[in-house]
Each structure stands twice: as C-alpha cells, then as structure tokens.
C-alpha cells in the first residue's frame, strides 16, 4: 500500500520579482527545462500550422474553379512543395516532440529529460531549419530567378531535383532545412528513448508506464531507423548537385527509382511516426473521459510495437506504379495489409474501453471521438489503396491526397486538438473555455468533412495531384468548389482555437492540479508544475498511481 505525501503547490518565489522583458526572453532562449522547450516546440509548430494552412488556402482558391489565374504555375508548384514540407517537418514533428518533451518526464516521475542540453540543441537546430526553408522565399534563386522557394514537391523526386532540371539553390534550401530538421528529430528521439529507459521513478517498471510513454518510445525508435535513409539520400543529392556525383544521374546509369526507395524507406515510417503520438493522446484521453481503464493494455503495447515494426517494411506501396514487377508488388501488398491487423486491434480496444464506461463529452473527448471515426475511415481507405491494382488507378490522384489528409488532419490534428484542451490546464493552471471549444470542434469538423470527404471524388474521376489548374468538362468542378469551401470553416475553427488559447491564459477558470480527475503522474503535481516537477520522487505500484490513491479499497495493483 502506498503512502502519500501532500505537498503544497510549488511556490515559485521568482514570480514575485519583477523581471524585464529581456530577462524573460533570455531565460527562454537559454533554457534546458523540458517543459519550456516543449512549449517552445509547440508554439513554433502552431506558427507553421498557420503558415502551412495559408499555403493550402491559396492552393484551394486557385483550384476552386477550372482554368483559374489566381496564382501562376510557378507559385502553385512552390505552394504545394512548401505546404507539404512545412506541415510534415516544421509543424507535425515539432508539435509532437513538443508534447512528448513536456509530458514524458512528468508521466514517469522524472525531473527532466536525460540530456537537457541536447534537448535545447535539438529544438534550436530544428527551428533554424524552418527559418532556413522560409528564407528561400526571399533569398533563393531557382528555375525562375531570385526569390523562389523550392518547387520540387515535398518528396523531391529525382531527377527533377538534378541541377539540370532545378538550377539555382531553391532545391538546396529544401535539402538543408529538412536535413537540419532530421538532426533535431534524432536528437529528441535519442532523449526520449534514454529518458524512458533510464529515468523512470521507483516502481515504474516498463509494464507500468502510461501508454503515451510506450508510444513515444516506439515512435522514437522508428526515428532512428527511418530518418537515416533520408539524411543519407539528401547527402547523395547534394553531392550530385555540387560535386558531380551520379547517385541519381540517369544519364550516367544512375537510378531515379533508387531515390524513391530511399525517400519512402523514410517516408512511410515517418507517417507512422506522426500518427503514433496521436494514438498516445487517445490512449490517455479516452479512458479518463470514459471513466475506465484502457482495455487490453498489453495488447495495446504489442500492437504499437507491431505497427512500428511492420511499418518499416511497407514503403514501396508508394511505388506500386513504378513497375516493380508482380513479385515486388505482391510482397508490399501483403505487408501493407498486415499492418491493418494491429491497427484494427487498437481501434477495437478503444471501443472496448468506452463500452461499459460513463462517457463525458468534454471538448478533449469530442475531439477524440472525431479522431476515432476519422481514423477508422482513413485506415479503411488505406486498405483500399493497399490493393495494388486500385492504387494503379488512384495513386498520385486526389484520392490519395484525401486519404493522407484524412490521417494527418482527421486523426492526428483532431487528436492534437484534444491533447491541447486536455493538458492546457496542466501547463497553464487554467481551463480553456468549453463553449469556444465546442465552436472550434463543430466548425472544424464541418470544414474537415466538406474538404476531405468530397476530395476523394475527383481522384476517382481521374484528377491527378500537383496540378495548378484543370479543364472544365472532366466532371471535377463541383467537387473542387466544395473542397475549397470547407477550407473557410476550418480557418474559422482554428481562429476560435487560437483565440481560446490566448484568452484562457488570462481569463480561464483556475484548473488546479487535477481538473479531469485523471490517474497518471502528471496530475500529481501542481499546475503549472514547478521547474523540478516533483518535490519528492514518486513511487508507483500500478499503471494508474492516482487511481490507487483515490480508490484505496480497489487499487489497480490488485489486478496487474
């Protein structure tokens, strides 16, 4: 039976002292505290979410009607390149690493990450990468002269990226920015793995860690294996462009397909790296708002590891149209289909968690419900795409664009919004407004579905991706218009969200240390936590230490 010690809210004496703006900035810039670094990652990612969203909006205006002249083809091609690169590398990764940074030490009862200075370094390197990418709008010279951002697509296929077809430096901005982001990712992943293995509090065996920590562990391990191939390929591309090597030089016998293999050996695990934290958030939020422990913890761990492992072997389903031959195609069909099994297990376990519970529809849970339905659909369109012959038709069409946005926005962004509403009280001490949250949810939901449900149709009607315009008479016009209208709702929804975050910081209801009546260690300290996290290192005896404290007559440790 665990003892407890009530500890008064951490009193941060330094708050009583007036500090100049410069001192505050200096403190944040030089911090190695995982919480501050986490918040910086998140703020940085939010800025890029808005910028990436702006790029998407411009594209949707251009595509709303056929033969539009809102932007030139050159600008449009830069827009989709920058939108994809920004959202994956400078929104998705920093946002998810930010949450991981903030939450993992708190959830395992540790004082900070294993390597605080590496943590800060990784953040600043990634941040610099993002700035470098956007500097290209001003500084790069590309195919059409000065001031051109990269326009080779976010996967930068060879030999379009060769010096012959992409002269100037805009492609190199892409290469270098993404390279730096990769360094930052490896650094943070290294920190997460080391922290998880080496810094758990007493009694927290691996089998007692919150599922969020498990998922970040799997995700970080995947980073080590997946980011390397992209880094290597980018070194090779830069050597090709500047030193005259022939890695992807088809004139000298090099192979364009080799770049595709290297990119997708990174690219496919990367999207699982992005989605695993979304599962992590759902794993924490769904049980708390269903008032039940997660169903099948060991199966969830096993399924997460299986997903991580299998995702390393499915990459060429992005290359079904390259002509790999029946043997190659068949293997990757099989591997891709098998990944649906552990993914399905996770969905069923979430369903079983809700089943028999008492569901409270607070805003975090609403977003997670959206996540569940949308991830189900996204997974099913993924299974459709794994049927290679179907993919032969719709690969590189708007059907695929709709599928992956369903995962990225419908699953990941929704889970992220849920996570924001759930942990905002912990980071700031105040609750976000439920009313504004509901407006945010419904507006964003409507916008999401208008855009991404109907986006599947042009794909089925033959519309390829990455085209700056299209002719009337293909049957695509109405669908594109609806898709573009959905963007408006999403923008307003996100606007509500940003306003909510800022307004609640000053006027939100005080949340206290455990506003949701939850069960993991981060709720055992004050909101916001003191810089040292816990006054005394906790000891745990089960997966839900606070449940044990709140229900001493029926602790989890009796059942595990």
């Amino acid at each position, binding site marked *: 039976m*665990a*003892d*407890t010690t009530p500890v*008064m*809210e951490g009193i941060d004496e330094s708050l009583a002292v007036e500090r100049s703006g410069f001192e505050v900035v200096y403190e944040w810039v030089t911090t190695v505290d995982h919480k501050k670094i986490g918040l910086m990652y998140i703020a940085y990612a939010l800025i890029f979410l808005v910028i990436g969203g702006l790029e998407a909006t411009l594209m949707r205006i251009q595509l709303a009607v056929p033969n539009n002249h809102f932007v030139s083809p050159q600008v449009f091609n830069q827009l989709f390149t920058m939108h994809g690169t920004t959202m994956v590398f400078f929104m998705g990764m920093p946002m998810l690493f930010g949450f991981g940074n903030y939450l993992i030490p708190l959830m395992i009862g540790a004082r900070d990450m294993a390597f605080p200075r590496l943590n800060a370094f990784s953040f600043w390197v990634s941040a610099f990468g993002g700035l470098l990418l956007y500097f290209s709008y001003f500084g790069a010279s590309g195919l059409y002269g000065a001031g051109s951002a990269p326009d080779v697509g976010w996967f930068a296929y060879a030999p379009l990226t060769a010096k012959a077809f992409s002269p100037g430096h805009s492609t190199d901005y892409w290469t270098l920015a993404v390279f730096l982001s990769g360094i930052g990712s490896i650094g943070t992943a290294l920190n997460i793995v080391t922290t998880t293995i*080496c810094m758990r509090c007493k009694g927290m065996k691996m089998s007692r860690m919150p599922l969020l920590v498990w998922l970040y562990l799997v995700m970080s391990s995947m980073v080590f294996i997946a980011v390397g191939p992209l880094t290597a390929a980018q070194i090779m591309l830069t050597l090709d462009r500047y030193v005259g090597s022939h890695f992807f030089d088809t004139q000298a*016998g090099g192979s364009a397909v080799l770049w595709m293999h290297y990119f997708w050996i990174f690219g496919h695990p990367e999207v699982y790296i992005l989605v695993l934290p979304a599962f992590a958030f759902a794993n924490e939020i769904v049980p708390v708002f269903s008032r039940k422990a997660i169903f099948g913890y060991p199966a969830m761990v096993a399924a997460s590891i299986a997903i991580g492992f299998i995702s390393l072997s499915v990459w060429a389903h992005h290359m079904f149209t390259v002509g790999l031959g029946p043997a190659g195609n068949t293997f990757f069909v099989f591997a891709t289909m098998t990944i649906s099994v552990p993914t399905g297990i996770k969905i069923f376990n979430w369903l079983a968690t809700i089943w028999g519970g008492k569901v409270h529809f607070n805003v975090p849970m609403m977003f997670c419900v959206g996540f569940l339905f949308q991830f189900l659909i996204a997974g099913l369109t993924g299974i459709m795409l794994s049927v290679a012959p179907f993919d032969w038709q719709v690969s590189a069409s708007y059907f695929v664009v709709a599928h992956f946005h369903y995962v990225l926005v419908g699953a990941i962004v929704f889970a992220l919004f849920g996570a924001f509403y759930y942990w905002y009280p912990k980071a700031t001490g105040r609750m976000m407004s439920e009313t504004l949250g509901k407006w945010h949810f419904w507006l964003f939901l409507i916008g999401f579905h208008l855009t991404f449900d109907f986006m599947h149709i042009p794909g089925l009607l033959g519309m390829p991706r990455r085209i700056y315009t299209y002719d009337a008479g293909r049957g695509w016009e109405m669908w594109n218009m609806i898709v573009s209208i959905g963007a408006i709702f999403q923008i307003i929804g996100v606007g509500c969200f940003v306003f909510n975050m800022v307004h609640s910081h000053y006027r939100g209801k005080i949340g206290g240390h455990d506003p949701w009546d939850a069960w993991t260690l981060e709720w055992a*300290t004050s909101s916001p936590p003191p810089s040292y996290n816990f006054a005394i290192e*906790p000891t745990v005896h089960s997966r839900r230490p606070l449940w044990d*404290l709140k229900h001493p007559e029926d602790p989890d440790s009796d059942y595990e």
Partner: protein
Amino acid sequence: MMNTASTIPIDAQLEPPWVLPNRGTVGMVCLIVAEAAIFMIFFVSYIFYLGKSLTGPYPAQVLELPIFSTICLLSSSFTVHFAVSSLRKGKFRNCTIGLAATVLLGSLFLLETAREWYHLIHDEGLTIRTNLFGTTFYSLVGLHATHVLVGLIMLSIALGISLGGRMKEAHSERLEVLSLYWHFVDSIWVAVFLVVYVIGR
C-alpha cells in the same frame, strides 16, 4: 476531487534496489542505430551500382586490399578497450597510454586512406564524378573516414584530459561510452572491407 495540495505517491519502504541502465550507454546505442541506418543506405547504393558503371576504371582494376589500415583500426579497438579497463581499475598511466595508442593507430588509418585516395585520383584517374563506382566508393569510404576523424577528435580530447591528470575513475563510464562509438566505427570498417574490397572486387 480538487485539493489545493498536490498528492505525490511515495513509498517509505524500499523495494529491491531500483537500478536503471546508464544514460550515456543508452544514448550512445541510440546514436549508433541512427548512424548505422545512414551507413546502410550508402552500402545499399554501393552494392546496387556494382557492375553498373558505364565507363572505367573498375574496382578490380584499381583497388588493393587495405591490410595495413585494417590492422591499425582493428587494433585501435583493443587499445581503447585497454584504456577503459585501466581507468576502471584506477591505473591512470595505462589509460593514457591506451588512449595515445588509439589516437596514433586511428591517425595512421586516416593517413593510409589519404594515401590510397591520392593514388586513385592522380594515378588511376578515379574521382567521385568519374563513374558510379567512383561516386559510391568515395562517398562510402569518405563518410566512414569522417566518422573516424570525429572519433579521433573526441579521443584526443580525452587524451588531453588524461595527460593533464584530470581523468578519474568516476569518468570510466563516459570513456566507455566513447569507446562504444569507436567500436562502432571499427565494425563499419569491417563491413566496408568486406563489401568494397572483398566481395565488390
């Protein structure tokens, strides 16, 4: 359910001692996995492009087995291991000797690589842009050599600290982490030796 006090669960009685792995070792293993992934892609490129160069020179014509540099590098793994175990036993002078030997052997390896490259470039006319063999050879061996150089710099710093008498037994874990990196660099060389100089020729 809202108190103003946070409640942290603690246990006065200690269970069996709570021992977790060493941070430095785990971190280095992670770094090694990431680096291995990068090297793997260069190996794949090398193997994929074997026999596909449109023009010469070809590996069998210009490559010779790098026996000397291999012996240097492999022995340096023994010397660094010697340095680490000496430090653990408190034998500081032996540690310094071990580190010095490692730095020396590593430098000899790099010099030998430089000599080989000079010969290939000036006598055989093989550069990174000559053909696919040149591209994949120089990039793979060059990437490895860069890692050797970084390792040598770190080992020299350690040697400097040791020579200054400031290396203590408590540092043995950190030195072991560095030696892990060095062993990794060594094993990559074994792979390069096999793939480039044995199988590829």
